[in-house]
């Protein structure tokens, strides 16, 4: 078997978190992707990337959630589920800890997603045109 340094295995776990954060992924799955025992994996991951794996996975999810809050009009519950988190209460708590404001307040601090979406003028013109009606 070709030699691959541990960091390369750890990167596989990091890539997994980046790619599949919206699934019910946990540190065990990351350790499996790296092919290391859980305790050894957590230590080595932290040494290589600065954060323990659970923190990396959570902040990846929170970063994606923040983007969805800014760029979509999905409900906070939907955003929470869309990033692979099951509990709305713990999502709200960890989001608030990371961003200093609740998900709702974070969203309110940006212009509405429909303004940020930059929907092309040709689309607005086509879809905004009313149906012709002869009724009064």
């Amino acid at each position: 078997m070709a030699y691959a340094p541990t960091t390369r295995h750890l990167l596989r776990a990091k890539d997994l978190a980046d790619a599949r954060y919206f699934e019910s992924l946990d540190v065990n799955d990351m350790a499996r992707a790296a092919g290391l025992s859980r305790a050894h994996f957590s230590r080595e991951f932290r040494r290589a990337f600065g954060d323990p794996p659970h923190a990396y996975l959570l902040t990846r999810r929170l970063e994606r959630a923040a983007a969805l809050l800014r760029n979509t009009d999905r409900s906070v519950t939907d955003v929470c589920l869309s990033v692979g988190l099951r509990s709305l209460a713990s999502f709200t708590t960890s989001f608030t800890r990371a961003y200093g404001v609740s998900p709702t307040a974070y969203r309110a601090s940006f212009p509405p997603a429909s303004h940020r979406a930059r929907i092309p003028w040709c689309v607005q013109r086509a879809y905004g045109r009313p149906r012709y009606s002869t009724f009064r």
Partner: protein
Amino acid sequence: MIKISTAQLWVDDQDEALEFWTQKIGMEVRSDVTLPELGDFRWLTVGPAGQPDTAIVLMAIPGPPVMDGETAEQVRNLMAKGFAGTIFLTTDDVQSSYEELKGRGVEFSEEPEERPYGIDSGFRDPAGNSVRLTQPREDLA
């Protein structure tokens, strides 16, 4: 400088397309907004994680008054026949992308094959649109 920002793909069902492009192909949601003032038009875009300024808009085939019924039917037909448009994607390892996507149930119409320009494969989205996935030959870059 002129750049490509967004390309459009007609889709049958936006929710199905969204699930396909994010969960199976691995793209990010860039924008998902529904506008009541435009007859509940939904602007839904996805893009690759590494290319924040490029997106694909997954456009539902509209009804009247935007598009008359006959035209909508024609577009639906073209799409089902695979002639409504193609997206050309690249990857640095087509064999591993192929296996990963196939494992998630993506319907490949062509397995990775050596071509003069690289290793090329093709799959379809749920609506029938053709998507190419290519590992370009590095020496031609």
